[in-house]
């Protein structure tokens, strides 16, 4: 493989800055700092959030969603979400070709929707983006991966959950894991996300504090791809006219179970 060029490069930077070779002191200033009082307060605030405060966040989320054309629908339970999705599938037409199919994450909340059964009436297939038998290794037959990819490409609705939703900006936060393909929220024409009210957090500060300092989230970190999604894809590159669905989904529906 190509040599990385790192040493020479870093030395040039060091010289430009006039730093000596010893940089432990500076490193300590930047990295591996202990949790601050402020971080602790932020974590506590999230942990001890009252139901009223959660409702407040939901309101903020609904307000923030309006200008970005994100449809937020608050429903009382899982079965009403299923009904809503079934209606959506009935109402919306596919973008390419006329066969309707749906791609969905393998995720406990999504599994509880029982979509396969609910959509079989309309003869719509639901493809879950997981390898059979929870296969983990990368030496899978190439066709397995290819087949899944094709299912996602052919689907006109993609159904995911999310790790969090930031109320301040109406932003879904997703990390990548086996079974939870990135392209489900990207390639289909319509993206449907289902979350519970407890997954709503206030803003970026809370998100980063959780990921950095909360024991459970810290373990996983950002994963190799953490994505923020705020509403449908858009462009204004032609005479500044706003158009949705440039490359990503044209419509996004967020169901919040509360």
């Amino acid at each position, binding site marked *: 493989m190509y040599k990385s060029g790192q040493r020479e490069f870093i030395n040039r930077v060091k010289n430009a800055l006039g730093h000596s070779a010893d940089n432990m002191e500076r490193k300590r200033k930047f990295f591996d700092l202990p949790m601050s009082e402020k971080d602790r307060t932020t974590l506590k605030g999230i942990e001890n959030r009252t139901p009223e405060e959660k409702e407040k966040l939901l309101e903020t989320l609904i307000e923030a969603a309006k200008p970005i054309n994100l449809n937020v629908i608050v429903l009382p339970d899982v079965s009403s979400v299923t009904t809503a999705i079934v209606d959506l599938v009935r109402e919306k037409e596919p973008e390419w070709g006329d066969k309707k199919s749906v791609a969905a994450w393998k995720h406990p909340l999504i599994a509880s929707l029982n979509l396969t059964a609910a959509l079989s009436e309309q003869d719509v297939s639901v493809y879950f983006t997981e390898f059979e038998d929870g296969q983990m290794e990368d030496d899978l037959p190439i066709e397995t991966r290819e087949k899944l990819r094709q299912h996602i490409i052919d689907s006109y609705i993609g159904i995911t959950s999310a790790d969090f939703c930031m109320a301040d900006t109406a932003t879904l936060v997703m990390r990548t894991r086996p079974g939870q393909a990135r392209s489900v929220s990207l390639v289909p024409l319509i993206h449907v996300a289902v979350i519970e009210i407890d997954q709503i957090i206030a803003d970026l500060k809370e998100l980063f504090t959780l990921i950095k300092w909360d024991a459970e989230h810290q373990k996983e970190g950002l994963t190799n791809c953490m994505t923020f999604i705020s509403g449908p894809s858009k462009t204004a*590159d032609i005479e500044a006219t706003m158009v949705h669905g440039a490359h990503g989904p044209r419509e996004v529906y967020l169901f919040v179970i509360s």
Partner: protein
Amino acid sequence: MIKITTENYVAEARKAIKNQVLQKALEDLQQRFGPPTALSYQKLLEGPELRLIAQDIRMQAIENLDIILEKLAENIHQNGGHVFFAKDGQEAIEYALQIARKHNVKRIVKGKSMVTEEIGLNTALIDAGIDVTETDLGEYIIQLAGEHPSHIIAPAVHKTRNEIGKLFSEKLDIPFITDPPKLTQEARKALRKKFLAADMGTSGCNLACAETGHIAVVSNEGNIRMAATMPRVHLAFIGMERVVARLEDHDALVRLLCRGAAAQKMSTYVSYIGGPRSAGQVDGPQEFHLIILDNGRSRILADEEFREMLCCIRCAACLNVCPVYRKIGGHSYGSTYSGPVGAVVTPLLVGINQAKDLCLGETLCGACQDACPVNIDIPRMLLALRFKLAEGDSVWNVTPADRKEKAIYSVWSWMIRHRSVYDFFLRLAAFGQNILPQKEGMIRRLPPPMSGWTQSRDMKAIAKQSFMKRWKKL
């Protein structure tokens, strides 16, 4: 290398000012982004002061870039990604070509990236027989038209819907349409095919995070997510300065970037990418490479006068308020970076003498600094560049731009320090000006060697009686 045409600045600017369509587009653009961005800073929880905090974060990162880049590379390696440090554009391109060859890459989809424009990556890839497609809608239009972007965020701002309709009907073989949603849909269709067929996706990077080992990429269209998700290989390019130390640093900076770029609270998509897909993951690239580029930046870093410029996050907010950019547009600047940011960065990257007109052309009004999400003092650096042009500079290899001008000013400065000489010349000039063409008390043209002064402005005629004389009488 990309062709730099900074020497055509004056001629190009003249053309742009006469182009009515462009003038209208530029005015609209500034209206659409300028005031809303300022308002969005006001509405920040911390108020516009957050810009100063962000500036501090950026400056600290720049001043410790050596350890921060090491940390970034270390973490990306740990996540299973590859990092290549490129001294210049040539090395970056060679590396990219090598990766492309290794994976037998025939088709590449590109997410918008100024760095790859800077090094002329496209040409190199195309020369190597690879099919390269820009996927940001604006960039795609520009590529089909065989032009260069004229704005960092709105590359096709100078194109009308009619032009785009014609272009699409020729290149995509569709009927002539002008409706933006329909045109967008045609591009979506054409580009989707490209995304799905591509072997490799390339992107830039808006801001990396060293302590976690991720690059953040931001877009509204979703094209960068596509390019980083669907092909087998993801190759990302980053200017060496586009990194901060900690995750929490991204809080202030991401918020400010989205506001500065398009007056948004949050762009539609922000992805933190740290490596290739891992075991059991259904999609994402098999291989992830980050190319970190110097290409003249360490030279800027070494000069404390200009180091601040490396805090720039290329959001284009300064373009959206600049009165000069509004009149002359992006192409006049003759290089990748236009507007106020280009007026400083381009001379520093390509040579101060070669790009001298860029820093001479700006007005020093200060609007850029007020709009900048990290409060970069662009006017100060423009002045510093002009000083080098006037006096010459050995470190930056600057020869004084205009010896004649310097000579005139030396004489002038000597003269005004000698009252009697000054008075004598004033009388002489007051008498001599009578033979010059005048209109309504203004002199239209000065004789050489001062003729440059009146090339595009009139000069007030010298009063019959000087202020000093009148003062004495009072």
